[in-house]
């Protein structure tokens, strides 16, 4: 099995875990505003099959490495509230999977 040489670049993709399940992506962005320069952002709705443990999460791919430390300092352990006032201390860490979608127009599937 041949494996491509793995790039050991500095990680840039960060995940914010354990966000309130009712939080919308817009509210999230509002709460962390001003959002540092980034090349990718996506938000995952809670997985309801986890029942009461269901939480949301967000991925941000930072443009500048320096911004990550500042962001983490500010938001790791930061408490988000849901609409009922329940507290959700969130976890900010590097995403274990660093790949991001290329922004180039992808080839359409000829199907």
């Amino acid at each position: 099995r041949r494996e491509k040489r793995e790039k050991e670049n500095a990680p840039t993709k960060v995940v914010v875990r354990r966000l309130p399940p009712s939080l919308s992506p817009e509210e999230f962005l509002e709460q962390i505003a001003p959002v540092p320069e980034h090349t990718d952002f996506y938000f995952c709705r809670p997985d309801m099959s986890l029942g009461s443990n269901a939480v949301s999460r967000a991925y941000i791919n930072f443009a500048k490495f320096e911004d990550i430390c500042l962001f983490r300092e500010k938001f790791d352990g930061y408490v988000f509230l849901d609409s009922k006032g329940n507290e959700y201390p969130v976890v900010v860490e590097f995403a274990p999977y660093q790949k991001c979608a290329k922004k180039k127009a992808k080839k359409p599937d000829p199907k």
Partner: protein
Amino acid sequence: PDLPQMVRAERPAWQEYIRKLLYKDLSKTTTEKVLRQARKLNWDDPEVSSYMTKCIIHVWNMRYNNIHCAANLLAGLAPYHEEVAIHVVDGVLEDIRIGMEINHPKFNQRRVSMVKFLGELYNYRMVESAVIFKTLYTFITFAVFLEANAPNILDQPEHLFRVRLVCVLLDVCGQYFDRGSSKKKMDCFLVYFQRYYWFKRQASIWTEERPFPMDIEYLYRDTLESLRPKLQLCTSFEEAQKAVDELEKEIREKLASILPIQDTDEQTE
């Protein structure tokens, strides 16, 4: 009395169709066909692509022996729907992590399926070996303190489930870490894994009346033996700890020889 009616999930037809494709039709012999059908979905509709993402992540709804088909399918979709592929991998890794945080037996089968899926994603080249190693090390370190009296709330002495998860992942893709740097990395991991295993095994809760479960012991031995037939397994925690100490000493020396570090009192871990 007014009993609440059992509510069955009413799903729109397109969702039922996706579920049928993934959870009923998908098998070794139909993967190509299912892939062709899946590619015809209206992926431009964010509802469709996010539902598809979710259903692929929920791989425990498939037959355990068909999980590799899901990885194969995703690899077939990835060239056209890169975002879906990335979101699935992110979702799988999150599920593995939150499984350790929730740590409830009702999710055990789901967690086993998920870990198998991750291994298959490696086999279909959807993730690199670094992701596999990160996951393996997370299993043996997350909220683990190698001290008999330290509280391991998320990994109590009688919980042996993480040994099982490590073995599942090693059984699925460990055989490919057989040369070059990935072989070396695997050898290192096995040193640490043996220490974790012996930490579990030597816990004082295991007694004559309540011996360490045989199925876990066999699983552990079988996995290591098939991976490294010539490896002399450690036979006690002390021995496993010594192996870790030697490995770390070696690494420190190697680091010191290539890095221009002057003597400091701090030890690098």
